[in-house]
């Protein structure tokens, strides 16, 4: 705690003009900063050794109806202490320019382009001002998250073509891939520039599945939006619904009962398990080693069927609600889960030794798709991918939520940043999740699973929440409106932070290895595109 205070004082000493704000919901330091000071202070936070700030989230709010301003908010995680620092600035209603921080913080590049598309605010000095979310056929002047843009507006169509970065020269050619791929996966476009086999450049062109999720949140109320959060990215049903519910609970000053918090951790670990099991198999399958894939998808199916038996949903839908868990599990059901874990752990350990003894498989995975620690840090990579590149971060340990303050999570960390490291992080996390589930069964207290709140959220009040989903950190910012409505909801799936990094991990690799590298990242398109 003393350390935090010293960080705050140090920051205030370095920049006397900033104003510290009181924080109502959650634990972080909040400062008001003038717009001109933003590049300097963000650079200071990012590079100063004592701070080592990682850009965690950047979002904008259209406050024009009430205050005639746009709000911009920059959230940093100070790596040594995992403390959050939030910088806020306001743009007067007719001011549409703000200084870009991308020239010295790479991680901001997509956030700023997203703000430009959704709000029409222009990041001055941004090196790449092409459209991101809005494809080129969207008419000029459509900025969906502005308050005066109707949510059910029918978009027209204009002429336009996306301009890719081009490399020209003898023997250099482009390979376009997507948006519809050969496997059963989501749509996205990849543009490779190659000379012979090795990839010289990869450029992503995503946001094909943009459904207007953040605008749809604004049509919901705080109490009814959970099903929408569950469908932001289907494979992360619990992660997203939990992050949303936690934000709303802070707004309502609602304390979740201990049993409810344990159940939430349990479901989150079950979700991590079935996704990691599927990924380990799929990575092997992309090297044409089908046997582990068959075994892993069988084990994944066992967990999905277990989910279905316990909750009536294979994806655990409907088990998270504002105030706690949507259902309770009996002691017999908890014992059933643990028995299933024991069986699958034994099963999986046998498979692991088969995988480890296959030299040709390991040879294919090692040194493929290396994401160095430096690149991972520069792009503020999170989750499994970050932990495979030596970034020691896991919200379950760093900012405990649900029941993780009472459970000891061993954070897996590898340094090499190649496909094998990402697979090993998943393998180790499978064991860790099973151990956590056993610990939960032993420690889970009796009592109610959910609490109600008589309080109403104040209009304009907002809260942040963070959950370590199976992919990485999921962030929500929920701002309440009048009478329990939602004024603004910012959703950040870990995929949004990690996608740009893949462009650096593939350089120098051959195109046939790209599916393997992509699988080892396994990012969501739906969660990224929103």
């Amino acid at each position, binding site marked *: 705690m003393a350390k935090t205070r010293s960080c705050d004082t140090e920051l205030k000493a370095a920049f006397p003009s900033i104003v510290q704000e009181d924080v109502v919901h959650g634990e972080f330091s909040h400062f008001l900063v003038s717009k001109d000071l933003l590049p300097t202070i963000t650079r200071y936070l990012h590079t100063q050794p004592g701070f080592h700030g990682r850009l965690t989230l950047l979002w904008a709010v259209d406050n024009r109806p009430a205050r005639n301003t746009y709000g911009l908010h920059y959230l940093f995680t100070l790596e040594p202490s995992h403390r959050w620092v939030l910088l806020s600035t306001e743009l007067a209603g007719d001011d549409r320019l703000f200084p870009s921080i991308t020239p010295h913080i790479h991680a901001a590049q997509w956030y700023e382009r997203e703000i430009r598309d959704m709000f029409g605010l222009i990041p001055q000095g941004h090196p790449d001002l092409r459209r991101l979310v809005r494809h080129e056929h969207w008419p000029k002047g459509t900025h969906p998250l502005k308050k005066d843009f109707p949510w059910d507006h029918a978009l027209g169509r204009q002429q336009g073509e996306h301009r890719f970065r081009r490399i020209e020269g003898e023997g250099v050619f482009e390979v376009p891939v997507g948006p519809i791929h050969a496997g059963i996966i*989501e749509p996205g476009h990849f543009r490779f520039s190659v000379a012979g086999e090795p990839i010289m450049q990869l450029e992503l062109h995503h946001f094909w*599945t*943009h*459904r207007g999720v953040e605008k749809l949140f604004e049509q919901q109320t705080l109490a009814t939006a959970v099903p929408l959060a569950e*469908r932001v990215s289907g494979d992360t049903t619990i992660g997203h619904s939990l992050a949303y519910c936690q934000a709303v609970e802070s707004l309502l000053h609602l304390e979740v009962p201990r049993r409810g918090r344990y159940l939430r951790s349990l479901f989150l670990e079950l979700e991590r398990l079935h996704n990691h099991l599927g990924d380990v198999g799929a990575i092997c399958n992309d090297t044409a080693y089908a046997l582990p894939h068959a075994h892993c998808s*069988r084990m994944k*199916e066992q967990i999905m069927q277990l989910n279905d038996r316990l909750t009536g949903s*294979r994806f655990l839908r409907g088990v998270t609600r504002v105030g706690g868990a949507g259902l309770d599990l009996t002691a017999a059901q908890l014992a059933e889960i643990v028995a299933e874990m024991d069986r699958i752990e034994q099963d999986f350990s046998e498979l692991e030794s088969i995988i480890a003894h296959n030299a040709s498989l390991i040879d294919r995975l090692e040194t493929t798709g290396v994401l160095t620690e430096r690149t991972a840090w520069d792009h503020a990579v999170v989750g499994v991918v970050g932990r495979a590149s030596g970034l020691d971060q896991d919200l379950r340990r760093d900012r405990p939520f649900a029941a993780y303050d009472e459970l000891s999570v061993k954070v897996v960390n590898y340094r090499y940043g190649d496909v094998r490291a990402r697979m090993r992080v998943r393998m180790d996390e499978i064991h860790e999740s099973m151990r956590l589930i056993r610990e939960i069964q032993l420690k889970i207290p009796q009592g109610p699973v959910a609490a109600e709140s008589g309080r109403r959220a104040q209009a304009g009040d907002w809260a942040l929440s963070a959950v370590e989903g199976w992919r990485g950190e999921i962030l929500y910012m929920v701002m309440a409106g009048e009478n329990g409505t939602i004024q603004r909801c910012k959703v950040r799936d870990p995929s949004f932070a990690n996608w740009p990094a893949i462009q650096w991990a593939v350089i120098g690799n051959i195109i046939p290895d790209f599916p393997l590298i992509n699988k080892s990242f396994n990012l969501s398109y739906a969660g990224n595109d929103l």
Partner: protein
Amino acid sequence: MFRILKKSLKTGVVTGRHPQAIQPSEPLTPEVRKKASAFNRSLAIREVDTGSCNACEMEMNALTNPVYDSERFGIHIAASPRHADALVVTGPVTVNMERALKDVHKQTPDPKLVIALGDCAINCGLFKGSYAVTGPVDRHIPVDVRIPGCPPRPADILKALTDIQERA
């Protein structure tokens, strides 16, 4: 080698170890039956995601796992629409995917079936009305078979697909 054999013998056959389908599937119209009869007992599917949350994709992927093993019914996934007999479309059709969906439909050789998988593809689900959604699927291309659910369970999908193969 010995390790692999031991593992396979220990695991045994898991195919078919899943709960039965519960969702009653919509009966097929005679026209669809007639169209489907050309494929006999083999169905090559191209899956197209036009904005789903990826839960439907996960369940389609589950069809190829050893438990459901759709290949034993002659149902397999084609890598290109040009090799496909049927398109399985998931998700409400987003503004950005509308063109791609129409292109894929054009590229699929006739006769072809279009299967709308999941509530979003059938009626846009929770995303109905959004500025970024132009769906449902049958607004853009003719739909022959509908498989409801959010997402439908693999057993239900398998039942609906094998229904198509049945002779009139």
